[in-house]
């Protein structure tokens, strides 16, 4: 589903390595948690996966499409929810979803069906025809989630998705992730909320200073680390800030 192979990214003329020889493989039908302290390289990795940042070395492929060689094919297969929902705030929620529907070639029936379901789950029906500029951070996050799922992507990428969500919406999001997985699709998300990752992820990867320090099945990891909680595991391998 998602193949990250020996990817590196450096800033300041190579002096600062944001991502260092990172390799990951995500299978179909799993929820994958991407963990790391602030500045560990999570967002940079996600930006490379989504094509926002060009890849300087290594390769990334999504559903068999290389993000550098076939960016359009790769982008057709994922939906992305950024950490700070920088979406088109002059649009109404409906116009935004409609725009993405046009871009991904989603049929009118699917647009109506998918958006109606998601709006109900996130209690966003009333705000849907209002301008996004008037939305709260949480509401922006919700409309970004709806937009990312409007084309039913095989891979759903989320960067810190729980930020700003109220408890019912956070619950709805976790349920959506599980449903996505149940459909044989993949969820790849970064988070600082280790409890959430522990509860819903099938596998997690922990990066520190751009390097992958741990990756595996939740149960495997716990067994290997002496049945510790994810928080304890995290603190032992990547404790402290990477900033």
């Amino acid at each position: 589903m998602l193949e990250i192979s020996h990817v590196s990214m450096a800033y300041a003329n190579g002096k600062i390595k944001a991502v260092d020889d990172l390799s990951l493989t995500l299978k179909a039908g799993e929820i994958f948690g991407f963990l790391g302290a602030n500045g560990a390289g999570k967002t940079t990795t996600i930006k490379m996966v989504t094509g926002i940042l060009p890849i300087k070395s290594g390769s990334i492929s999504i559903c068999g499409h290389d993000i550098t060689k076939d960016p359009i094919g790769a982008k057709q297969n994922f939906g992305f929810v950024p950490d700070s929902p920088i979406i088109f705030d002059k649009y109404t929620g409906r116009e935004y979803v409609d725009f993405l529907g046009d871009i991904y070639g989603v049929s009118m029936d699917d647009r109506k069906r998918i958006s109606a379901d998601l709006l109900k789950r996130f209690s966003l029906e009333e705000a849907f025809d209002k301008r996004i500029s008037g939305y709260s951070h949480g509401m922006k996050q919700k409309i970004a989630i709806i937009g990312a799922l409007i084309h039913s992507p095989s891979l759903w990428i989320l960067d810190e998705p729980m930020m700003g969500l109220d408890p019912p919406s956070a619950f709805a999001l976790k349920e959506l992730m599980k449903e996505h997985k149940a459909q044989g699709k993949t969820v790849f998300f970064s988070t600082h909320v280790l409890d959430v990752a522990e509860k819903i992820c099938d596998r997690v990867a922990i990066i520190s200073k751009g390097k992958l320090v741990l990756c595996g099945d939740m149960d495997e990891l716990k067994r290997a680390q002496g049945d510790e909680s994810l928080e304890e595991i995290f603190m032992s391998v990547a404790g402290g800030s990477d900033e």
Partner: protein
Amino acid sequence: MSNYLSVLKAMFKNKLRFSEGKSKRSVIGFLCLIGASYALVMAILLSVVVEFGRMFNNPQTQIEIPTMNVSFYFFILLTAAGIVLFFGIISLITTLYLSKDTDFYSVLPIKQSKVFAAKLSFVYISETVIVAAIVLPIMIAFGAVIKAWAWYYVISLLMLAIIPAMPLVLAAIVAIPVMFIASKVKHRSAVALAFYTLLFGGFFGAYLYFVFASTDSSVSPEEIEKAMSGALGIMYAFYPYTALSMSVFGVSSYGLGVGASTAVNLLIFIGSSAALLVILMLAAKFMYTQSVKANNQTNNATAKKGEFKSSSAIKALMKREYISSFRTVQVAYQCYAVMILPIIISVAFSIVFGNMIKDINSVGVGFDTRFFTMCIMCALMAMIATTGNAASTTFSREGKAISSLKILPVDIRGILKSKLLAWMAIGVPVSAIAVVIVNVMNFDLQLTLLSVFSLIPLSAVFIVFGALWDLSAPKLKWTDPSQAIKHNGHVTIGQLICIGSGMAVMTVMFILFFNDVPMNIILPVCWTLIYAILVIFGVVDILLYRRVDEYYKRIEI
């Protein structure tokens, strides 16, 4: 430092500072461009003033000099009022009503009255600076030409700060209903845009007509005197300016001597300006209070239920381009309202030159009218840049949202295509309308064919040039979308290139014409030049287009 001064200082810093990360070179380059544009405008204005001054003081013209000097000085003040009125309305609305910092200041431990006072001072000082920059050199030049006394300069300088009072009151009076209408309707920017366009078009058109009609060399001094006396109505309407004009020239009035009437006139000007300032403060206070009130109200109104509308990816991106530019008032103004300029130029110049040709032909001079038509074409060519303003900032206006574009399954060529189509769909028809107007009003088959097949494509290649150039180095770091346009070299340089091209062709034409080269030779030379410019733009477009992938890839947020 008092809170009032701190807020005022913050506002000026915010307005004048360049974006972080701008190199010293680019700042200097930008300032040079601004300086060059200013020098160009001033050169035109000063030449008009000098011509008038000479005409008034030419003993052969037999004009009553003091009357003409007072009238002309009054018209300089009126020009200042027009400038302040035009910029003042926009400034008052954006600073006091549509300001984005209202929330920010309301949480600070500063009295609202002090914030208001700082904001009003900001508007007033900004307008005074604009007046000083444009009107003061004109006043000095006029004074020098007519050999005015020292008194003229002293009073002109001292009264400069009071001149904006009257137009700013008018601006507030106009801005209040606009603000009310805008607050009541769904599409605020549409109201503001329509208003700005009318204001801009009306002001610019009237000004052009006035300047060119009154600089018409075929008009006799008697006719000018008649026209000036016909303008007495305006002089009564703006009596404080008339009073100031009379006082700088020491004109006797009200049956008093020179000294007494000068003092009375000065008192009238200062007194009425003080009264107007009080009115301005009340009006501005009202606008600011409304803004604070509107900010404190939560928008709980239920929105009308919309419908999904399907379209292709390119059309969806085009729609997005229009929506995002149209729904921010300042951006909409910069993108759309300025496009009216080529049309105004074509109408105003055609009328003015048409009258001129009529006058010349009436005395039996066999003047080749194609000369004037070519002048209009060159002016139009210079103004075609305005149709590309929106395209030259199309990537800069994306700001951080450019990352949202990058994750879409549409490549840069598709995105570029949508942006170009969006702006060509408006810019090219605008140029076409302007060209058609000129040709209808000054028909000549050869010129019609040449202009249709050169100026309209020129507008298209210029739009492409603007968008590609912006893509090569977009200004993405901003907090307010209007900052993507302000201080954006792509707009200024683009405009200067167009103005320069138009002026270059016009200069060649003038040189040839005044060296008695027949129009049958001048026209092919000029059109060859225009086509050469078109080809150069086309080649540059192709070269830039070849590198779009590289440009897009290197954009990082």
